[in-house]
C-alpha cells in the first residue's frame, strides 16, 4: 500500500549549505502526518523532496515500497496542494481539475465523471466554468484540493495550504480536510497525507502524528497528546502549546523526600509521579518546564504555594494570560477570569503548580530528563 518511508534524507544546496540533516521518517498507510516547525526548519524542503521538486543529496525516499529518488514528480503517485494554490491562471476550474488526467491520457468520459465526482465532494460545481482569478481564496483552495483529489494519488502532500486564508476560513478548511481524509480512509482509498505547516494549532488538530522539525533535524515524532504531555526536549516543549511553556533555569536538588527544583528564593517540590520519572543521571543544572495551564490558585494555608507578583495581564474573555514573577523568574499563567479577579487584588497572588506535570530538562543538552 502507500506507506511513505524516508531514510537518512539529506539536502545540500549548491553553495554548500546543508538544509536537511539525515531525516528518518515512516508514515504508515492512511496516516495523517504533519511536519511542523518554525520557518527555515526545512519542513517544506523535505516535502518538496518527497514530491520530486527538489533533488535529493543523500538517503532515499520510498512510496509504497518503491524507491522514488529518481522518478519525475508525475510518476511518484503523489499529489500536492500548494500554499498559494498554484492554479493554472489561464484555465477554467474544470480544466485545472482535469489537466493531470488529460496528460495521463484518460478517456474523456472518465475525466468528466471524475471532475463531477470531485466537484460534488468539494462543493465546487458552480465554479467549474470560472477562471482562477474569479475565485475567492477559500474557493481557490478547494479547487486546488480537488486537483489533488481527482488524481487518486497514493500520497497527498500539503504545503502550508491554509496560510493564505483568514482565520475563520482556515478553521473550516481544517475540518474539511480532516473530514475528507477520514472519508477516503473509510472508503479504503489511499489516503496517506504529509502536511506541512508552521501553525501548531493546525498540527495538533489535524495530525494523527506530528513530526516537529528544527534546522533540518527531527526533534520528535509523536501523536498530539504525547507531544504535549511528554515533550522529549526543550525545543518541542517550547514550540508546542499556547501560550508557550514556561522555561526557567533551576537547580535540581535531591532530598530525602524526593526531588525539588530551586529557582530564585523559591522551591518547587516534584509530585510523586514526576519524582519517580527523573532520570538517575539527571544533572543539577536544569531547566524547569511548566505549562501556563498547569497552575491553579493556592488555598490560604497551602504550604506548597508560590508567591507571585502580577505584571501585565492579557484579557482573553473566558480566561486571562497573566504575566507574573515568581522568585525573580518570569512565568505566564492561564487562569479563569473570575478567579483571577478575586485573587489578584493587591498585585500578588498565591499559586500552586501541578507538581506532577513539571518537566525537567537537562540545560546543556536540552533533553527531557523527567520522562523515565
Amino acid at each position, binding site marked *: 500500500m502507500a506507506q511513505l518511508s524516508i531514510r537518512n534524507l539529506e539536502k545540500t544546496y549548491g553553495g554548500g549549505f546543508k538544509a536537511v540533516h539525515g531525516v528518518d521518517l515512516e508514515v504508515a498507510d492512511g496516516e495523517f502526518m504533519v511536519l511542523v516547525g518554525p520557518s527555515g526548519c526545512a519542513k517544506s524542503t523535505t516535502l518538496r523532496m518527497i514530491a520530486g*521538486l527538489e533533488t535529493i543529496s543523500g538517503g532515499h525516499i520510498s512510496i509504497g515500497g518503491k524507491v522514488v529518488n529518481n522518478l519525475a514528480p*508525475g510518476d511518484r503517485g503523489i*499529489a500536492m496542494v500548494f500554499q*498559494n494554490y498554484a492554479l*493554472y491562471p489561464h484555465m477554467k476550474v474544470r480544466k485545472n481539475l482535469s489537466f493531470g488526467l488529460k*496528460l495521463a491520457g484518460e478517456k474523456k468520459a472518465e475525466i468528466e465523471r471524475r471532475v463531477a465526482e470531485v466537484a460534488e465532494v468539494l462543493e465546487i460545481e458552480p465554479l467549474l466554468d470560472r477562471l482562477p482569478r474569479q475565485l475567492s481564496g477559500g474557493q481557490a483552495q478547494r479547487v486546488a484540493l480537488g486537483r489533488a483529489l481527482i488524481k487518486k494519488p497514493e500520497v497527498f502532500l500539503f504545503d502550508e495550504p491554509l496560510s493564505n486564508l483568514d482565520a475563520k476560513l482556515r478553521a473550516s478548511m481544517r475540518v474539511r480536510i480532516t473530514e475528507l481524509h477520514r472519508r477516503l480512509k473509510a472508503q479504503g482509498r489511499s489516503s496517506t497525507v504529509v502536511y506541512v505547516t508552521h501553525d501548531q494549532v493546525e498540527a495538533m488538530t489535524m495530525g494523527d502524528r506530528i513530526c516537529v522539525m528544527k534546522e533540518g533535524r527531527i526533534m520528535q515524532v509523536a501523536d498530539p497528546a504525547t507531544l504535549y504531555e511528554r515533550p522529549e526536549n526543550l525545543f518541542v516543549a517550547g514550540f508546542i502549546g499556547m501560550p508557550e511553556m514556561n522555561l526557567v533555569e533551576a537547580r535540581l536538588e535531591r532530598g530525602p523526600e524526593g526531588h525539588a527544583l530551586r529557582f530564585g528564593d523559591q522551591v518547587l517540590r516534584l509530585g510523586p509521579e514526576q519524582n519517580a520519572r527523573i532520570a538517575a543521571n539527571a544533572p543539577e543544572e536544569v531547566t524547569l518546564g511548566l505549562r501556563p495551564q498547569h497552575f491553579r490558585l493556592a488555598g490560604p494555608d497551602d504550604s506548597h504555594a508560590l508567591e507571585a507578583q502580577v505584571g501585565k495581564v492579557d484579557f482573553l474573555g473566558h480566561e486571562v494570560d497573566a504575566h507574573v514573577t515568581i522568585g525573580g523568574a518570569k512565568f505566564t499563567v492561564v487562569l479563569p477570569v473570575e478567579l483571577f479577579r478575586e485573587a489578584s487584588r493587591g498585585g500578588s497572588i498565591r499559586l500552586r503548580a501541578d507538581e506532577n506535570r513539571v518537566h525537567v530538562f537537562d540545560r546543556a543538552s536540552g533533553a527531557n530528563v523527567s520522562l523515565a
Partner: protein
Amino acid sequence: MSQTMLDDSAALDADAEAARHLALQERRRRLSMILRYAVLTAVGFLMLYPLLWLIGASFKNNAEIFSSPGFIPKDPTLSGYVKGWETSTPYSFGRFFWNTFLIIAPKVVFTVISCAAVAYGFARFQFPGKRILFASLIATLLLPNVVTRIPQYLLFSEMGWLDSYLPLWVPSAFAGDAFFVFMLVQFLRSIPPDMEEAARVDGAKSWQVLLFIVAPMLTPALISVALFQFMWTMNDFLGPLIYLSSVEKFPVSLALKLSIDTSEAFDWNRILAMSVLALAPSLVVFFMAQKYFIEGISAGGVKG
C-alpha cells in the same frame, strides 16, 4: 434660545466659508488643467507634424510639395498612390509587400518559439555553464550589429544563401535575438514557479509545461516580442540591402529606396505615398496589439 440661534449662524458662516473655499479650489484646478492640456497638445502636435505632413503631402502633386509647408493639400490627388504602386520596375508594390511578408512571417513565428524555449531554459533550469552562457548571451546585446556583419556575410555566402531570405530569418529561428531572450527571462523570473511545479506534479514533461503552462502565462510578453520583431523587420533596410540583389526579391524597405534611384527627376509624391503605405502595417498591428503590448513591457517587473 438665543444661544442656539448664535450657534446656527456660526455654523452657516462656516458652511459659506467652506463653499467659497471649495469654489476657489475648483477654479484653480480647472485653470491648471487647461494649461496642462494646452501644453501637451502643442507638444504632441509638434511631434506628430512630420507624420501629418507626410500623409498630407502624399495627396499633393509634386509642385505643391515644395511650395507650401502646410499639410492639408489644396488640390488632393491620388496619382502619387496610383503611380507609386505601379513602380518603375516590372513589379507592382504589391509584390514588395508580399516579399516583406515572406521575410516577416517566418521570422516572427520562429523568434517567438525559439526565444520562449531558450528563455524558459535560462529562467527555470540549472545546468552546468549556465552563468557563462547567459553572460555571453547578454554580451552579444552589447556588441554593435555592424561588427558581425562581415563575418556573417562571409558565412552565409559560403553556405550559398546569398540573394535568398534565409540569412534574414534563420538566425532568429535559433534565438539569435538576445534582447528578446533577455526580456522573456526577466518576465519569467517575475512569475512564481508554483504553477509549473503543480504541472510537473500533475505529470507534465518539461515541454508540456512550456507549452501548456508557461506559454499562456507569457502571452503578453510574447505578443510584445512578436510586435517588436514585426516592426523592426518591416523597417529593416540594411539586412535586405546586403543580402538581396535581385529586384524581384526586394522587400518594401528596399523598394522605397529603389524608386528614388531609378527615376531621374523623381516624383516625391509617389515616394511619400508608398512611405505612407509602408508605415500602415506597423501602425495597424501596433494598435491592434497595443493592449497586450503595454501589459507585456510593463508587467515584467511587478507581476507576481
